């Protein structure tokens, strides 16, 4: 009995299975007859083969589908509910998805849309409602976080009765192009700024016509022409080259060597201002079109500076020769009048005195030396006595280079003499040094050295070199007059000279400054 029962159960199960298969087979036949299927799968030795049941529409649709599949732009179609019903290979690749995973989903499951401006989304909807089409740009953010700049074209799909049944979106990834455009824009801004703000003139010329096609703002400053006046002119017409022949020659050279350089050309602005300019012209290719760029640098200031340096070198040379001549004369006179045994010491002291004046001039950039400064420097050996036994008194007065040298040497000789034989040789001796500039017209400069309480003075029986220094040399330096007295109280020295020969103009270098070197 159990065997029979189980056999019956197995039969019932097999019967049920057969019925189920029959139902499926019937359903299949019904679907095929009703035209509800598009493809049949036939088993073969090579595996399942797909046979599309194609009518004319099916073939047309297949052809369209093939075309869309082949295009490099991303194509996605959605139905009225927004479900994805088609995605081509380019779109799948772009968004990093596969068709089988996203068919039936929403586009928002594939990417998120970002709009450049808040109103863009609403504007796209309005355009689709009004025109059945919209074209524009937005950003699609893929599910793996990539931001894609997309140039989109969306069209409403219509049935043959004109009813909307979906949308077709065609998108082109323009991310690389946008990035390139952004780089080009940044580059344009950067180099445009260089061009606009350069303190060199820049001209761009057409090699074929030799005419200016662009000029930077500094060029208009250099020439006093407006940009519009410069454009269309040739170089010789703006005074950069002397004539048409020179212009022709420059262009010939440029064609041969691609670069021409002029180290120094005269350039006259429209208002007559003269400038020295350095010109470098380059012939280069601008996206397949040859252009010439001329860089024009105003070297007027540099030329002046160079000329000034040359003048200074000549002046330094001249002064060095003068100084050497003075040293030579001092050495000669020192040897002639003094004790041969003390020659080296005396010469050394006098050269030191000269050097002290020179140092002050250099320190003051050759703009003169204050009298007080000179006195202090020349009496540096007696600096402890200044303020006690040596008094210095006088107004602010700036000495010229010549006066510094002459008066400085005289002060050195006077102090040396006072230390050996005069007021500074005695314990109680004093020296008053004063100077003044009178208010008379013309102004007079006076300076005096007066000794007190020293040993009794005796007028020298013969004239030594020291006397020449405090007398004739000092007079010659300032074209003045020196008076020396040998009073019982001590030696007196008084210099008078026209102030104009003695005093320097404050703030003005004693070196000549060129005003025009051409």
């Amino acid at each position: 009995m159990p065997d029979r029962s189980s056999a019956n159960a197995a039969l019932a199960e097999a019967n049920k299975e057969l019925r189920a298969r029959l139902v499926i087979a019937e359903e299949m036949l019904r679907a095929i007859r009703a035209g509800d299927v598009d493809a049949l799968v036939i088993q073969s030795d090579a595996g399942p083969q797909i046979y599309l049941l194609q009518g004319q529409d099916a073939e047309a649709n297949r052809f369209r589908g093939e075309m869309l599949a082949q295009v490099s732009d991303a194509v996605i179609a959605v139905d009225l509910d927004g479900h994805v019903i088609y995605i081509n290979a380019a779109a799948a690749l772009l968004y990093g998805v596969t068709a089988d995973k996203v068919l039936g989903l929403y586009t928002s499951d594939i990417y998120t849309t970002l709009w450049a401006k808040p109103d863009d989304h609403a504007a796209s909807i309005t355009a689709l409602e009004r025109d059945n089409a919209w074209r524009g740009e937005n950003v699609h953010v893929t599910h793996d976080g990539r931001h894609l700049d997309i140039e989109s074209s969306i069209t409403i799909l219509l049935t043959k009765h004109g009813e909307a049944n979906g949308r077709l979106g065609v998108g082109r990834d323009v991310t690389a192009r946008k990035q390139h455009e952004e780089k080009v824009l940044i580059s344009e801004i950067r180099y445009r700024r260089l061009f606009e703000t350069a303190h060199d003139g820049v001209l761009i010329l057409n090699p074929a016509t030799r005419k200016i096609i662009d000029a930077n703002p500094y060029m208009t400053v250099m020439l006093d022409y407006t940009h519009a006046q410069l454009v269309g002119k040739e170089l010789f017409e703006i005074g950069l080259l002397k004539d048409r022949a020179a212009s022709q020659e420059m262009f010939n050279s440029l064609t041969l060597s691609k670069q021409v350089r002029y180290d120094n050309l005269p350039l006259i602005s429209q208002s007559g201002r003269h400038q020295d300019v350095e010109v470098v012209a380059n012939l280069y290719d601008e996206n397949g079109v040859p252009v010439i760029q001329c860089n024009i640098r105003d070297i007027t200031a540099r030329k002046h500076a160079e000329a000034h340096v040359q003048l200074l070198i000549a002046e330094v040379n001249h002064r060095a020769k003068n100084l050497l001549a003075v040293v030579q004369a001092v050495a000669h006179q020192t040897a002639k009048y003094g004790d041969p045994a003390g020659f080296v010491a005396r010469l050394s002291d006098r050269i030191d005195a000269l050097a002290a004046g020179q140092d002050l001039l250099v320190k003051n950039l050759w703009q003169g030396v204050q009298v007080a400064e000179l006195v202090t420097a020349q009496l540096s050996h007696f600096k402890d006595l200044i303020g006690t036994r040596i008094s210095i008194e006088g107004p602010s007065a700036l000495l010229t280079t010549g006066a510094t040298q002459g008066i400085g040497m005289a002060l050195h000789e006077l102090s040396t003499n006072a230390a050996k034989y005069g007021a500074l040789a005695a314990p109680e001796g004093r020296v008053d040094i004063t100077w003044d500039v009178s208010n008379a017209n013309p102004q007079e400069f006076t300076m005096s050295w007066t000794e007190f309480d020293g040993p009794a003075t005796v007028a020298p029986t013969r004239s030594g070199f020291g006397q020449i220094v405090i007398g004739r040399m000092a007079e010659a330096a300032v074209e003045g007059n020196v008076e020396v007295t040998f009073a019982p109280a001590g030696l007196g020295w008084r210099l008078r000279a026209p102030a104009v020969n003695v005093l320097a103009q404050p703030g003005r270098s004693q070196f000549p400054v060129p005003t025009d070197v051409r």
Partner: protein
Amino acid sequence: MTRKNFSTRAPAAMELAALARTLTHHVLRLYVAGTTPRCIRAISNIRAICDEHLGDRYELEIIDIAQQPSLAQSEQIIAAPTLIRILPLPLRRFIGDLSDTDRIAVGLDLARPSGHIPHRTGS
């Protein structure tokens, strides 16, 4: 009296069973052959049915046998489009563009047959 009581309880039990099924996670597999119109309609229709009845409690896998014919072998697919309900069991199979959404919803046990008037208890 008994019959009446039975008839009042039975629809309620059926409704509960249907409700339980809609709360179950569904796994569906739709076999299509490229982007033919019926296949596209089938995708659209099954999405609409699932969205309406299941919300997010379903998983729909779309398999393009035009791209990979070998995938048609495992489920013995002989036409496209074909929808197979993998879960919950038993396996169900629907052929065509699924445009008769009411019939498909009933076939998937997501809705009751139309024409059926739910029995109201009480008043």
